[in-house]
């Protein structure tokens, strides 16, 4: 009988030893450490690029329009209703003790310190980290990023730094708008649901705020903005596997940036509370 490749092949005799569990875990750890290293390098470079020319300010403005103005509708809507629902939830409890006038205090602190930055961060992460990842991912799989490098342009300068800077500028602004609209929503709810005076609500909401509260919220938005922009860029520029890979990167960008924002929020809150005690 003639020898065919199928007859000659003996998979059992020549097949390599399957890797042990320890080897698999070690490989997985190495891959993840490498990813963290690559992400850290990209993040550092995105900031370092801003210190030297060329800077793509036109691209920064375009990204500010896309990230900032584009996110405005969802931030306005969600901010308004979060403020309103906060009043409805807390007002009912305060009414039991006849202290419904304190609602403005609680809603204000909660929005400025916590809900404003984190909800805005998560919403913008959902909208923009995915958008950044899919845009850069599509460019990566169609060799547009390589074409850029081949023409002497550094993709980290042209694609990453403008997105990071635009997010760092727009997210605090979006959060400020979200907090303001949230307070308006809270005021409307308190007037119609708790029968509170609008002026009283507003005066208490403003009077309770201290400088440390505003700083806490502001510093969080900077960190959240940095996280969502760099994670989106990293996932996009590291797409493998064509259009399926772009879809995977988009999902990963939202999941990773959201989780990192929540984790960072915990630590930032702890640090901010500590600094509020010691410094402010």
């Amino acid at each position, binding site marked *: 009988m003639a020898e065919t490749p199928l007859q000659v092949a003996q998979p059992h005799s020549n097949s390599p030893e399957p890797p042990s569990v320890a080897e698999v875990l070690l490989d997985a750890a190495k891959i993840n450490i490498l990813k963290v290293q690559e992400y850290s390098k990209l993040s550092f470079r995105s900031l370092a690029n801003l210190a030297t020319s060329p800077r793509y300010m036109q691209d920064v403005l375009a990204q500010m329009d896309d990230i900032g103005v584009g996110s405005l509708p969802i931030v306005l809507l969600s901010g308004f209703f979060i403020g309103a629902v906060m009043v409805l939830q807390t007002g009912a409890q305060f009414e039991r003790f006849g202290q419904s006038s304190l609602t403005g205090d609680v809603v204000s602190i909660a929005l400025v310190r916590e809900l404003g930055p984190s909800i805005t961060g998560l919403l913008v992460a959902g909208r923009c980290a995915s958008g950044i990842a899919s845009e850069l991912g599509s460019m990566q799989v169609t060799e*547009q990023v*390589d*074409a850029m490098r*081949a*023409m*002497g342009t550094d993709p980290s300068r042209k694609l990453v730094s403008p997105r990071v800077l635009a997010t760092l500028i727009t997210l605090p602004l979006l959060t400020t708008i979200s907090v303001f609209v949230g307070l308006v929503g809270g005021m409307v709810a308190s007037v119609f649901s708790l029968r509170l005076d609008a002026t009283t609500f507003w005066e208490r909401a403003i009077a309770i705020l201290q400088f440390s509260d505003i700083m806490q919220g502001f510093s969080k938005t900077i960190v959240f903005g940095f996280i969502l922009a760099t994670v989106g860029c990293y996932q996009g520029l590291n797409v493998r596997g064509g259009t399926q890979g772009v879809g995977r990167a988009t999902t990963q960008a939202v999941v990773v940036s959201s989780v990192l924002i929540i984790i960072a929020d915990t630590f930032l809150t702890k640090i901010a509370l500590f600094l509020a005690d010691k410094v402010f």
Partner: protein
Amino acid sequence: MMESPSRFALTPEKSSEAAIQFSNVCMGFAEGEILCGLSFSAQPQETLVLLGETGSGKTLTLKLAAGLLRPDSGTVEVLGELVSRMSERELLVLRRKFGFVFQEGALFDSLTVGENVAYRLREDHLDEEEIEPRVRQVLEFVELGHTLNQLPSELSGGMRRRVSIARALVDRPPIMLYDSPTAGLDPITSQTIITLILRLRDVYGVTALLATHRLQDGFALANFHFDPATRRVRRNSARERPGAAVTRFLVLRDGRIYFQGSPEEFLAANDSYLQRFLI
């Protein structure tokens, strides 16, 4: 029409060294080694046609030449610079002397044709008054002057490839790298692309690496030349053969050089593997 020589045109008199030099280059990925011990050189104004099956490492060779990838071992030298040892920052400067035509064009899909072609000039902060005529000129060169304001998605595959060539040559680089410029195109459009490459070679005197799996592209470059006086493509005569003098074939197989030589040597080689390219 642009009929002036390339901005960085290399002449054999000016440069005694090879324009592109690969020395014992090896490169692999997780799946295995793709290139192993690759050594060749391309002289100034020479066109080196890289032939090989799909996956033989043609695109990889071009990307190594442009410094888009680094070899695992060996050295890549381009225009006297050791590309394989340069930092990314240094490479970004050097790459402005390359024109790279990607297989699928790799045009920026959110920019118009005119903006794609003008990209490099705008990066160099040239005046808009200077950019516009140069963009029009180079688009006329590839016979796509009417597509200035169209998006790449509105063009056919062949037109996108020609825009890609226009974008690559707008800064008149001395080295052109073509990655399968005729792949997936009909014979007539392929002929148009090859004519453009001929014009670039014979008008500007560029050094070129052309990766392809179509032998007819290589022979077209070897047997024809563009006559700037009559502005027509002519078959090389027996006495005057400028095309054949500067076109060489390099066949890659299993990550190594299987054949390297002139078109005549290719035809004369009595080798069963090379014969398969002729069928």
